[in-house]
């Protein structure tokens, strides 16, 4: 962090008194640390998206196309006709304010336009002006003209929403500000206003199949590297299957798992687990990314990037698909994939080859979450687990936004954790499960230039971790999301030093007793384990 970065003590000095100015007059200040850099032209171009150019949000001239207003208004009209969610959410908010302090960005910044209701009003005010009769009355009706100031405000605040959907849990009508942000970002994209932290991964992913732009040989090297590491730790030789035709299961993971830390230990975890149970699976270098930053760009882009999953499953002739630990990937797989890229009628109903369990909840999509798969293995006594090997970890679990509020995947990971760890503690009730707080950097906002906003937005999450850290000595924050694994370590260093971040399958594999393994003295990270024989408690 740079010198000018605020200290945690300074950062929590937050003034929640809104400014006296009428919010309908746009004001936005692109202050360093609170916004993301613009999408680089070459990536915008590669994707055939409109208006590739050199620009930055701090420029006074955003080099918009001459008819940009019409483009946006046409875009709004089109989306009002295509999405009931959009039209309805524009119409029915009563401004009760129940959502206001539910947003981590509002809690952490005090900026009134970070209240979800205001984030939506930024767009709603333009909707009123151009699409409702009352809007002709102007300000009194809460309506305003679309101008560059308004557009800049949209950019600032729609890239200051992590599409976490926490607000929608509390709204009496289920108004989902994430949905409004998604549409808002689509509109911004129509005139070429996007951020590089989203657009570059999207472009890489479209070309190579993964966010990082890793090419097939690089993919293979990474997997082999992981296998070598595993051999060193456990003495067991693993040959990672890649693009293997006729495998039973296609395994889809976020690319960070094989290229970033601490994700990497989760990858080691999966590989070890699959080796132990002798699973007939394959990775794919083409579908080498389950993550989908299209979700943070446009509905069209989700579909463009996600097409490869079913295409590859079909090409390889697998029976069904298993998906790794990743939050937003699971929003896509659960709520969009079947509709967009299906039907997956060429696949079979997923059945666990070890337990015979039919995953009826994946009957149509044919894609099972790794936590569902593993919980079923443990329940059926297919794994030998020595939880004491995780005794050096005091563990808590962060519910990632999407598995929480798009699936409701709460018990499966907890079941695994409770079996694999002797010390497991829950964070306070208002901060977990459906009420979980975002890491503060999802939806493509996890970039360094946005650091101050990340630390602000991540404050509620970090503060809950601090609670269990102080109370129980929690030193490991586990989660099932690749974005979390990338952004939470920074957040912990800032707010709760001494807490590391890891995956559920990393912890599982630490504890997994493997046939023929050498005695393990370190965990997958190479950290010393406590000597066995420590007492067992049930948290």
């Amino acid at each position, binding site marked *: 962090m740079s010198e000018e970065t605020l200290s945690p003590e300074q950062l929590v000095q937050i003034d929640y008194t809104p400014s006296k100015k009428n919010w309908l007059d746009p004001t936005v200040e692109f202050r360093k640390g609170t916004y993301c850099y613009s999408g680089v032209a070459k990536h915008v171009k590669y994707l055939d998206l409109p208006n590739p150019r050199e620009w930055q949000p701090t420029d006074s001239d955003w080099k918009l196309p001459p008819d940009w207003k019409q483009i946006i208004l046409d875009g709004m009209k089109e989306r009002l006709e295509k999405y009931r969610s959009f039209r309805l959410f524009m119409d029915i908010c009563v401004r009760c304010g129940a959502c206001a302090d539910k947003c981590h960005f509002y809690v952490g910044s005090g900026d009134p336009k970070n209240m979800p209701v205001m984030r939506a009003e930024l767009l709603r005010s333009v909707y009123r002006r151009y699409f409702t009769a009352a809007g002709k009355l102007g300000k009194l009706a809460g309506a305003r003209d679309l101008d560059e100031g308004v557009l800049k405000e949209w950019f600032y605040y729609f890239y200051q929403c992590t599409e976490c959907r926490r607000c929608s849990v509390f709204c009496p009508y289920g108004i989902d500000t994430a949905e409004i942000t998604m549409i808002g970002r689509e509109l911004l994209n129509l005139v070429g206003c996007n951020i590089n932290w989203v657009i570059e991964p999207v472009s890489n992913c479209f070309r190579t199949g993964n966010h990082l732009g890793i090419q097939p040989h690089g993919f293979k090297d990474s997997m082999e590297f992981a296998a070598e590491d595993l051999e060193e730790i456990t003495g067991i030789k693993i040959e990672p299957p890649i*693009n293997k035709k006729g495998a039973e299961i296609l395994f889809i993971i976020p690319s960070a798992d094989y290229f970033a830390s601490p994700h990497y230990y989760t990858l080691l975890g999966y590989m070890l687990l699959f080796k132990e149970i002798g699973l007939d699976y394959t990775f794919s270098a083409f579908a080498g990314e389950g993550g989908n930053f299209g979700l943070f760009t446009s509905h069209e882009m989700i579909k463009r990037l996600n097409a490869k999953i079913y295409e590859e499953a079909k090409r390889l002739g697998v029976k069904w698909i298993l998906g790794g630990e990743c939050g937003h990937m699971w929003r896509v797989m659960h709520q969009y994939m079947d509709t967009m890229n299906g039907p997956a009628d060429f696949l079979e109903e997923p059945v666990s080859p070890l337990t015979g369990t039919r995953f009826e*909840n994946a009957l149509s999509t044919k894609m099972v979450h790794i936590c569902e798969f593993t919980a079923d293995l443990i329940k059926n006594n297919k794994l030998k687990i020595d939880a004491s090997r995780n005794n050096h970890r005091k563990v808590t679990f962060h519910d990632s936004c999407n598995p929480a509020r798009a699936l*409701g995947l709460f018990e499966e990971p907890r079941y695994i954790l409770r079996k694999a760890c002797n010390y497991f503690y829950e964070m306070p009730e208002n901060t977990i499960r459906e009420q979980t707080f975002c890491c503060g950097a999802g939806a493509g906002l996890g970039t360094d230039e946005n650091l101050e906003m990340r630390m602000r937005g991540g404050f509620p999450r970090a503060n809950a971790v601090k609670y269990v850290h102080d109370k129980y000595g929690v030193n490991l924050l586990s989660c099932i999301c690749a974005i979390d694994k990338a952004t939470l370590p920074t957040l912990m260093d800032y707010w709760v030093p001494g807490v590391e971040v890891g995956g559920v399958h990393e912890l599982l594999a630490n504890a997994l007793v493997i046939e023929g393994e050498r005695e393990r003295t370190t965990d997958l990270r190479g950290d010393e384990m406590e000597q066995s024989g420590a007492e067992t408690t049930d948290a």
Partner: protein
Amino acid sequence: MAAFYSLILVLLLSIAGYFGGSAAGTFFGIIIPYAAIAVFLVGLVYRILLWANTPVPFRITATCGQQKSLPWIQSNRLDNPASGTATVIRMALEVLLFRSLFRNTKAEIKDGPRLVFSERKFLWLAALAFHWTFLFILFRHLRFFLEPVPGCVLIAQELDGFFQIGTPILYMTDLIILAALAFLLIRRLADVQIRYISLFADYFALFLLLGLALSGVVLRYFIKTDISGIKELAMGLVTFSPAVPAGIHPIFFIHIFLLSILVAYFPFSKLMHMGGVFLSPTRNLANNNRTKRHINPWNHPVKVHTYEEWEEEFRDKIKAAGLPLEKV
């Protein structure tokens, strides 16, 4: 300012009703109410049809509890419904009890820093109190529109006046609705955040409802108006043989004029949340996404990067890495 303007507007409307009613009873007692109802019906149907005819391309349920997955994991049927029936129950709880609003808490940063959550159920309570009493009072009003008055209306009336205080007997709902509306209004004005987000329309709805309720209270408890003339007018309206009997108190015209305004304004305002709440896609869809395919009626084709193109682009590297190729 928005609050002030909307108060002024409601006052002006009341004055118009008061004097207009005396001067032009037919206009305020018959033409306007009929026109308002017509606007209401047409507007309501139009808005609902517009929503209903807009596609729901994706099933974007917001899940607020454990999903249905493995048979031995207890799923939360109400907050994460997997079936149609469970979804109907979830919706019923939303509509009848404002369940999501019940979750409301207050988050504050205290020294430490600690983020502390406290209960904040008053919004829920006041909202529920207002809506239910409003419904109840509407129901009680049926005594003006039906002859003979149905037993259930009489029972409702009886219940409402259970404590038999004063003459005419005090209805509890009258007190509750005024208190609830006052709370909602004061909250909007006193809480800086809520004041910041409040628009003219938000105050207008509250003042209109307050004006409506207050004029009703004045008629009943202070003027103790003779209701036979009013009943005659009401019966005339519903039987399409309208006539304005003589001797109706001008305050009554405030009451009926504000009601007409409310009814006509309804379809064009946020009050349409009444219809919208039933159609909200995050709440009214089952979370059975992976079990049952949801169809998007406009599922447009998009440009993708196919495996063939990918293999072609990276052919040498795939070969060098020893990975299998489709086209060797």
